[in-house]
């Protein structure tokens, strides 16, 4: 696991097997862009300085005869061909044309709607229960035929709560119930528009060491209290107890700063007055699935937590979902 992972600086951390190819292409393209911009820019500034209008000196009618621009143009074209054929097309082809073998992959369905990601797991029998649109209710968001289809009995349906195993190819079948959404995991370099009327499959594999709990620990960072803002730390929790010089416990590990700007800002002020110098925090849910295509008034709110497990943890999670919930009162 690379040390010190952060959000918000250039590329986010990458936890997928194919991600580094995309990052490499992005880096190479930016180097190319700078290789064009810097000489252009330097030449531009040179001309501005050298060729200012001066009295007694006139402009040259035909100053440049060299073929340099033609060679530069050919050079640009050659680099672009390399970017296209050498870097982009192979990565894209693998992304689009090479699904993992059926016996190796773990298949999960994701059905998008305004404004949640429904994840449908096939359960122990490995077969997805049938669904029907007429059965859709708020308690059955994908219309699973719970009574009619025996395969549906062991299916798991979650809302905005996607769990995936690491170290195994994941095959995801994406569709939408209502409008176009876009399934985007920034930290896995995966994006796919989710279009109603179509089912589009995507596949990727998560690095075997990328377990959510480990990632969370790794993303622990200290923010000096003068630079702390609730907007930046609203999704974070304290990594350890916050104890002042006098030994007073101002906040416990796992606490958050507050649920609103007002509450959070007051809390930060309170901690600052108590003499706390820095806030040592980590994101509560380090991995997120977000919606990248405008889908309505709560498009910004359409995010699912993504939790990665090893095989044992994943099996345990699935078992826990199927445990019946007992309510004592009635």
């Amino acid at each position, binding site marked *: 696991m690379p040390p010190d992972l952060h*959000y*918000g600086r*250039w590329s986010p951390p990458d936890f997928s097997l194919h991600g580094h*190819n*995309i990052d490499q*292409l*992005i880096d190479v*393209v930016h180097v190319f862009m700078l290789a*064009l911009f810097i000489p*252009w*820019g330097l030449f*531009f500034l040179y001309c501005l300085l050298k*060729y*200012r*209008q001066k009295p007694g000196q*006139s*402009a*040259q009618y035909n100053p*440049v005869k060299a073929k340099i*621009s033609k060679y530069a143009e050919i050079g*640009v074209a050659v680099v672009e061909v390399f970017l*296209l054929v050498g870097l*982009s097309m192979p*990565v*894209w082809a693998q*992304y*689009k*044309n090479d699904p993992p073998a059926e016996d190796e992959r773990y298949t999960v369905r994701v059905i998008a709607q*305004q404004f949640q990601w429904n994840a449908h797991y096939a359960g122990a029998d490995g077969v997805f229960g049938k669904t029907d*649109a007429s059965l*859709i209710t*708020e308690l059955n*968001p994908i*219309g699973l035929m719970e009574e009619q289809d025996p395969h549906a009995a062991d299916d798991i349906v979650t809302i905005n709560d996607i769990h995936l195993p690491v170290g195994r190819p994941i095959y995801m079948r994406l569709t939408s119930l*209502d*409008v*176009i959404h876009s399934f985007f995991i*920034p930290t896995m370099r995966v*994006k*796919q528009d989710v*279009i*109603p*009327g179509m089912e*589009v499959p995507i596949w990727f594999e998560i690095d075997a060491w990328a377990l959510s709990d480990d990632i969370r620990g790794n993303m622990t960072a200290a923010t000096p209290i003068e630079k702390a803002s609730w*907007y*930046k730390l*609203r999704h974070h929790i304290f990594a350890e107890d916050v104890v002042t010089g006098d030994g007073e416990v101002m906040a416990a590990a796992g606490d958050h700063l507050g649920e*609103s*700007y007002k509450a959070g800002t007051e809390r930060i002020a309170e901690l600052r007055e108590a003499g706390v110098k820095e806030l040592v925090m980590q994101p509560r*849910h380090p991995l997120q699935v*977000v*919606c*990248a295509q*405008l889908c*309505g*008034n709560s*498009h*910004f*709110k359409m*995010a699912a937590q993504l939790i990665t497990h090893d095989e044992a943890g994943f099996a345990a999670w699935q078992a826990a979902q199927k445990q019946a919930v007992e309510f004592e009162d009635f």
Partner: protein
Amino acid sequence: MSDHAHSHGDHDLPFWKKYVFSVDHKVIGVQYALTALVFLFFGFSLMMIMRWQLAYPGRPIPLIGAMLSGTLAADGVLVGDGYNILGAMHGTIMVFLGIVPLAVGGFGNFVLPLQIGAPDMAFPRLNMASYWVFFVGGVIMIGSMFTKTSGAGSGWTMYPPLAVTAAYGETIWLVGMVFLITSSLLGSVNFIVTTIQLRARGLSFFRLPFFVWAQLVTAFLLLLAFPPLEAAAALQLMDRVVGTSFFMPEGLVLSTVHLSHLSGGGNPVLWQHLFWFLAHPEVYVLILPGMGIIAEVIANNTRKPLWGYKSLVYSVIFLGFMSFIVWAHHMFMTGMGTTLSTFFQATTMIISVPSVIILTCLIISLYGAAIRFTVPMLFALAFLPMFAIGGLTGLPLGLTASDIQLHDTYYVIGHFHYVVAPGTIFAMFAGIYYWFPKATGRKMSDWLGKLHFWPSFIFINAVFMPMFFQGMAGVLRRQYDQTEQLAGAASHGLTLMSSWGAWLLALAQIPFIVNFFWSIWKGQRVSDNPWHATTLEWAAPSPPPHGNFPAVPVVYSGPYEYSVPGVSEDFCPQNVALEA
């Protein structure tokens, strides 16, 4: 032709025929420009309201918050619906009501006939019709924001099924678009016929100023690319109002309600193809007139011919042609396979070549020059690196593999704003400062112009440069509250920088507005050719009368005969024969 020029007898026209329902291309050009500038300001204001919500999510907007309608805001705080409505209307207004009418309707109408030595456009009444159809379309679009629905809210891209099922002002938007598109179609026919038929004697195609070439290619783009969108708008209007399923697939379930009354069978991706088939050439419509203006200003203020005139012309023609076959690079994420995406990636890479050539020619034109840092030249010079940044940042977006990470993020917003804002809008400013003396006979104030330029340049970079970093970090676009997303929360500092940049940028426009109106009445009076320029419009009086030229000009040379060796003056107008 001379009969035509004198048949109007404009000295006898009543006020409303001379200045309101005028068929004179100059009056129409000024009408377009003023209307477009008002709409541009309105569209910019919408974004400034949105930037408050981005910088201080959930907090009431000072002053303006209380005035926003119940659909847009509650207790002065913008709500999700309001943010989306302001965003969609911002995009629509800036593109269709602001830039195109200013660049093509304004500058094209005013300057093009003058630059080719014509007395007016080929079809003056059609020209007037195109303005008024645009005006009605503009009133409909802006008016929709003052109805109960407060305007369209599904992006300027209006993707169904969201745009079909949304309960905002999408229907009015579609009706408004029909008017705006019709206006552009009427105008483009006029430009093409005028340029081909009404050039002065001796003005062959390769003696045309680059501005005219740019407008000609732009007119072809408008003529050929808009009809599919007009058709698509009609189809979506039917989907919304009548219940057809051109873009609506079967089996939609909206908020647990199965839309079983729809026949289905439509495809949302069809709209995307029809929309982007226009909208990609549309972005070249946004930039080409600007490039034309920049070329004129640079030639004039370097006191030498543009370097690589032929390359510029061939490049702009090639660019126009290529712009029709790259549209699906906006759709790489829709589930496109390798065959189609290979084609569009390749064409997108190819189209970058003429852009690079044009920019390189303009930069090399500075070599061996005698640069005058006039106010139009400041804007023209700034255009060059800004357009370079905008154009170059299109490359990672045009390659499918890198587009996976960058599509629909702030990287895209940074990319296209760099081309349109410090690109085209700076070119518009350059054109206004440059041609103001021709339209009014007065010059705009230089020091107010510099006071406008420098803060604008600094703050416009402050607004848009952070967006590339946010996009790389994964911050998504069209987000009412960026901080709901981890990446958006982490980069909130950059959002603050963009917001404050935007508000300061707005303040920086005040010198321009003051300068513009003050100079109309009190500006320093200047001669017919204060910039000592070579192109034909400067041979006409300032302002040109109805019919433009006292005598039909004859052209003897290319458009940029500056610093010709052996000639004492450092410029030689096109309609003056060069002594051997």
